[in-house]
């Protein structure tokens, strides 16, 4: 099961590269959404590898509240673009 | 109806988070779920059947989503399309939520807009050029 982190890391690099090369704000937001989900899943995987449920709980909490900021930011950006 | 669904959802989240079924925890959970604020708009008529249907739709959406994912991987879908889907106007907010969930969960469709007058704007990806 140790093999899993390597591929996950490589896939995580894709949206990071995307934010670097794309100038459109919504494309960057998509990459942000992708990164935030992927990192929290990686935290869950790490907690299983380590057998440390403190980290697992943190992963679940980040997963369940982390996207809230993304939605707020999307709404603000929509308002800004309307002007 | 909305009230019990709401309470049920909150209790589920509470017990999954605490993972503890001792009487004390059940009492605390009930108190917390009743205390935290909720909206009081009950003026939407919706029957039990509507709810059952919507919940069933979102359960069915899970295997369907995986089938669609495999389909997209096997045959690429290159074209995009925008359609309107009709719903009964003035649906209860919870039902609208479940509808949007069921449609958006499947990878081929995304709801981009909900209109009070009774339609969803659905964005599709398709295999062939839409006419």
């Amino acid at each position, binding site marked *: 099961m140790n093999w899993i982190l390597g591929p996950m890391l490589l*896939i995580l690099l894709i949206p990071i590269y*995307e934010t670097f090369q794309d100038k459109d704000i919504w494309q960057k937001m998509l990459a942000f959404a992708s990164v935030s989900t992927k990192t929290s*899943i990686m935290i869950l995987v790490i907690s*299983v590898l380590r057998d440390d449920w403190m980290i697992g709980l943190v992963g679940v909490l980040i997963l369940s509240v982390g996207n809230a900021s993304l*939605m707020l930011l999307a709404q603000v950006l929509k308002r800004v673009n309307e002007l | 109806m909305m009230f019990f669904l709401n309470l049920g959802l909150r209790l589920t989240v509470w017990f999954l988070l605490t993972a503890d079924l001792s009487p004390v925890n059940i009492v605390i959970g009930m108190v917390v779920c009743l205390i935290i604020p909720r909206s009081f708009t009950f003026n939407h008529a919706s029957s039990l059947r509507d709810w059952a249907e919507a919940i069933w739709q979102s359960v069915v959406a899970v295997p369907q989503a995986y089938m669609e994912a495999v389909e997209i991987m096997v045959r690429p879908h290159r074209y995009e399309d925008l359609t309107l889907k009709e719903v009964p106007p003035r649906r209860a907010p919870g039902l609208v939520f479940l509808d949007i969930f069921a449609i958006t969960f499947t990878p081929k469709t*995304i709801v*981009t807009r909900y209109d009070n007058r009774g339609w969803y704007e659905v964005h599709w990806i398709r295999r062939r050029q839409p006419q």
Partner: protein
Amino acid sequence: MMDQLVNIVSNGCIGAGLVLWLWGTWPLVGPRSVLYKLHTLSMADTLGSVAIVVGLLLRIPSEWPLLVMALISLAIWNTILGYVLAYCSTEEPND
């Protein structure tokens, strides 16, 4: 015997999840529209991640409340986030 079977199924789930991740994330770097990328992202981030968490769940069934919580919040948040992003990134129709 049973253990081995569970192991194989779990590895299969995680592998499938990783394939979905890769397949859905790859189009991000392409020139497609935001909505098209949202479709593929819902495939990667929702379905792929659910598959990975199910794989973890099979391996460590003792911690099911936590992982079921992860599954629920994954499905709901990601889906609704897809809707919010689709709504915010498209223009209001002029009627």
